């Protein structure tokens, strides 16, 4: 699964927690989940658990700390998929 494919699936993971759907459609690797997408911080654990289910991976605590931007999310997911 390449980064573009991961990004498209990631949009589906983020969708329930993102109010501005237009912004979500146009995210790139620099998009910050909280600052740009305005995802409420209380939903960040939901995002991680939904990503685990979507990609059939396990995201450890240290890795989940890094999931701040779309790009860092893709880094973590990509690393876990290819493990």
């Amino acid at each position: 699964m390449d980064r573009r494919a991961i990004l498209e699936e990631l949009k589906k993971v983020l969708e329930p927690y993102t109010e501005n759907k237009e912004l979500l459609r146009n995210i790139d690797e620099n998009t910050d989940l909280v600052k740009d997408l305005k995802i409420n911080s209380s939903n960040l654990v939901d995002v991680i658990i939904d990503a685990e289910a979507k990609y059939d991976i396990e995201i450890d605590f240290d890795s989940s700390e890094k999931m701040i931007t779309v790009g860092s999310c893709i880094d973590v997911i990509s690393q876990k998929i290819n493990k």
Partner: protein
Amino acid sequence: MMGYGRPVEPERLASTGNDIVALKATQPERTCRPRFYSRILTASEQENYSRVDLPFDHYVWLCWSVKESAYKYRQRQQPGLVFSPLKIVISDLQRSGDLYQGIVLGGPEPLYSRSSIREDVIVSVVSEDATFTGTCWGFQSIASGSYADQSLAVRVSVLQELKATLLCQESHNLRTGADLQSLDDLQIQKDAAGYPVILQGDRRLSIPVSLAHHDRYVAWSYYSPKV
């Protein structure tokens, strides 16, 4: 005669941190799954649950709101800090009258937490001072849960409260830099590091402020001690 005293430690930046959780916007069943709460609660916090008379999902979100408050408090002092709930440890969390109080470890100094749990909302605030002298905090419900409405409502509310505080504490306005003649010029903007600051015109006031919103609730805290 000059002496050599203890080296003077740099004064830490005054701060404040708060958070709010609207319980109706959470998923109780999911919250109670170990896969979920083990990302928020440390082993010691899980053990402490038996000492707190709350539904478990409320306890998880109570701890979350305290940790988020502590993160906001410390982010002002350590820009670039990453929120890591398991590295922020709450000790001695227990009910005291109408509030839940605890001690937050995992930073340079312990922080003290106070939380209020109403029917469907949890509001928390932290301070380095166990008495919370000078820390003002509050919350209110709003009609809409959209981000724009939350953002506007919390700013209007906190500035309204702050104006009342400044008018009551005229003597300390020399320290904060506030000008009582132009309180309508107060506004809140985000610092480059991402936390909110209070401006009067183009001057930044020495009043740390923290904002939070979730669903149809907004909350705020600010630190403005008398001198």
